């Protein structure tokens, strides 16, 4: 009797699980038909990253992984090509009207995914939303925009509160993704986020959080038929699982491949590794405040000379990095090529400098703070410095604790950080050395640099502005408020079935990824 009951409940449980599993299994298909070359004939591109998108709101997002997906759904007025040059997007041409006004001529005949025509009203709605709502994560990049004037259906004027040399950079990044004004005004933002609509080559189909985003092609895309029928972005946090998915053939592109897995992927038939420099430079930021040992320029120089950057790239980074003496890397406005791909390493001179600085017995003691994500790099740097006579105390912090110390500017002599540049402009790297911003962090104070940086902030003359930043870079390379280690590279594993050239901005434009012939 009892046995019978147990048997029945066991079976019930089993059926319950099967039903549950079936409910939880939307028809995204098995793993086998998501790879580029499918047996069913429909072209599906599957890309895996470590993190999921945050939302489909291009204005309330501050995450490269999100933008990488969203660029396929939402268009900008102008785009960056793979060399970071501005090319037409939803605007075909643009010109400066006066120091605070830019005029944009909009592409005609473009429709949103729901059929609404794209007009200047949408530009006004989009840009004013992100410029005025200070709770949006992209607001800080757009708050200098005063208003958008609709000139006619296909012309819009964007007016800033002062001369802004960065306006075009702002308009070609996340936060400037054009959203449909009519649709949102009618249905509300909540409804829009559940069923996002843009003008891009791919339409929203499904988002299962922390699992996948599915996009389908937009037949009415203004540049013609998209290449893929479906683009799937999967989020797989564990790197070894991403590698396994790639090796099992169920995804086409995997980002964030650990340097230790490079050989394993290259040894596999039909798979390869592709790399590209990204917008992130790993660096040590040094304090020059009175009383700090790093206030002495000889000590700072000794730090620079004692670190073998090339050695770090080759060992820990698995070769994926480019040494540099500037953080404004090629592709960014204001870059100075004479400092790129260069590095200083001279341990003998480092020792000598320390002696000159008065450290004859005990070397200078200083704290190096780092977020645990860069722990290995910091350990090697500390070891190299200790070898030349420093006395480094390593302070490894959990990422959110690091962020807090970073924003409250409470690090001691030195911290390690990877700093990106989503605006592709030197100002993004150097505003931190403005007197006001440097207070409490580096306490860097150089009147000449201050003057150059302040002027460049509002200088609309491209040529002289570029010179200003190049001058700043030369001075900083000697003053060393920061010691640059190397520009990081993105490492991707791909199947031979796709032709993928990674971009320095880490975007995945599905239209730029082709099925291999």
């Amino acid at each position, binding site marked *: 009797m*009892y*046995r019978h009951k147990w048997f029945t409940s066991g079976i019930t*449980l*089993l059926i319950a*699980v099967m039903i*549950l*599993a*079936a*409910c*939880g*299994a939307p028809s*995204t*298909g*098995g*793993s086998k038909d998501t790879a580029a070359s499918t047996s069913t004939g429909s072209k599906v591109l599957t890309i895996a990253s470590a*993190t*999921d998108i*945050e*939302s489909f*709101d291009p204005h*309330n997002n*501050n995450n490269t992984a999100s933008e990488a997906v969203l660029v396929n759904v939402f268009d900008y007025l102008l785009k960056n090509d793979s060399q970071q040059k501005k090319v037409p997007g939803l605007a075909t041409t643009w010109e400066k009207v006066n120091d605070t006004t830019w005029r944009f001529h909009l592409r005609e005949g473009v429709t949103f995914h729901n059929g609404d025509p794209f007009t200047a009203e949408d530009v006004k709605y989009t840009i004013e939303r992100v410029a005025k709502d*200070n*709770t949006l*994560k992209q607001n*800080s*990049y757009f708050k200098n925009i005063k208003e958008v004037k609709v000139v006619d259906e296909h012309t819009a004027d964007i007016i800033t509160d002062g001369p802004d040399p960065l306006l075009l950079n702002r308009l070609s990044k996340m936060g400037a993704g054009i959203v449909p004004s009519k649709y949102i005004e009618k249905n509300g933002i909540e409804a829009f986020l559940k069923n996002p609509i843009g003008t891009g080559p791919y339409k929203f189909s499904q988002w*299962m*959080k*922390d*699992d*996948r985003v599915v996009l389908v092609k937009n037949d009415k895309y203004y540049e013609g038929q998209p290449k893929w029928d479906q683009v799937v972005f*999967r*989020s*797989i*946090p*564990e790197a*070894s*699982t991403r590698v*396994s*998915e790639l*090796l*099992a*053939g*169920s995804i086409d592109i995997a980002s964030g491949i650990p340097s230790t897995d490079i050989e394993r992927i290259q040894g596999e038939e039909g798979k390869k590794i592709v790399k590209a420099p990204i917008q992130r430079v790993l660096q040590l930021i040094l304090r020059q405040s009175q009383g700090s040992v790093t206030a002495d320029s000889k000590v700072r120089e000794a730090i620079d000379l004692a670190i073998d950057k090339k050695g770090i790239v080759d060992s820990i980074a698995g070769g994926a990095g480019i040494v540099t003496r500037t953080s404004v890397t090629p592709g960014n406005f204001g870059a100075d090529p004479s400092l790129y791909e260069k590095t200083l390493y001279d341990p003998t001179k480092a020792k000598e400098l320390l002696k000159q600085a008065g450290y004859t017995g005990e070397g200078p003691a200083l704290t190096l703070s780092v977020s645990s994500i860069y722990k290995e790099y910091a350990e090697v740097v500390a070891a190299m410095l200790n070898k030349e006579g420093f006395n480094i105390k390593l302070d490894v912090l*959990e*990422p*959110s*604790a690091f*962020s*807090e110390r*970073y*924003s*409250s500017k409470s690090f001691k002599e030195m911290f390690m*950080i990877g*700093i*990106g540049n989503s605006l592709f402009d030197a100002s*993004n790297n150097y*505003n*931190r050395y403005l007197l006001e911003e440097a207070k409490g962090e580096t306490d860097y104070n150089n009147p000449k640099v201050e003057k150059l940086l302040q002027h460049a902030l509002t200088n609309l003359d491209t040529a002289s502005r570029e010179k200003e930043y190049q001058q700043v870079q030369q001075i900083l390379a000697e003053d060393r408020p920061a010691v640059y280690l190397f520009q990081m590279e993105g490492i991707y594993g791909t199947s031979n079935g796709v032709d993928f050239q990674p971009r320095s901005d880490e975007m995945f434009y599905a239209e730029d990824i082709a099925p291999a012939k």
Partner: protein
Amino acid sequence: MKTYIAKSLLQVIPVLLIVSLIVFILVRVTGDPVALMLPETATAEDRAVLTQALGLDQPLYAQYIKFIGSALQGDFGTSFRYGESALPLVLERLPASFELAVAAMIFAIIIAVPLGVISAVKRNTFTDLIISSLSVVGKAMPNFWMGIMLILLFSVMLGMLPVSGRGGMEHLILPAFTLGVGLSAQMTRLIRSSMLDILNQDYIRTARSKGILEIVVIGKHAFRNGLIPVVTIMSLQFTSLIGGTLITETVFAWPGLGQLLVVAVNTHDMAIVQAAVFVIAFIVVISNILTDVVYRLFDPRIKYS
């Protein structure tokens, strides 16, 4: 019985309050969410604006009172990461975690019950030794490592099962098995000792002396009573499965509560952390009460006053 249940349910309230207080404080002293939300180049002014907009400039006690007030209405705040209400985000992950937990439990039962009974019946034999050793290995093996090994074998080398993600039944097998093995190791040992205990009881000897078939003695008399402690541990394990599948969910990119919580902790998404811990605490408390109830149904000797 009814009063017992009512009393237990009342005790839930202080437990949840304490849990909420601990989580609230821990989340707030371990880092600044504003720093994580803004780009590296944000100015002090940007930070101030956002801090105020999020209400983080208020004193801690005021934030806590506000938090409890809203929580009572099911509002745990807005997720910084998703910009959506936290509780629905947490609840929508429950089915995925629940599905994985049930499947893992089934695997564990399928493995543990026969092994446990056999090793008890054949105690101190070679078979018993093998089973005991296996369960030690099973318990000692980290979920993380085992998950990766299973993926390599069944997905990469043999191509039989999908590597990760949630989909059909085939997606469930590897993660559920990974979780189930660790669980079964513990259950096997428990069933063994529980069965041994009972096999030495007088009534078993009586049953044997009456000439009842050994298989019936074990299957009917001993097994049923031997299950009582197992039910308890199963329910406790089940709740820990719901909240504690963090590692397995991460390895298999399983979009459940565990993965949500891991990401929320890393990104300092306070609302999600609070809501998730609250929901997990709630499940644990409720299922403990249910365990007691089920226990009583199995063993009428236990009385609740």
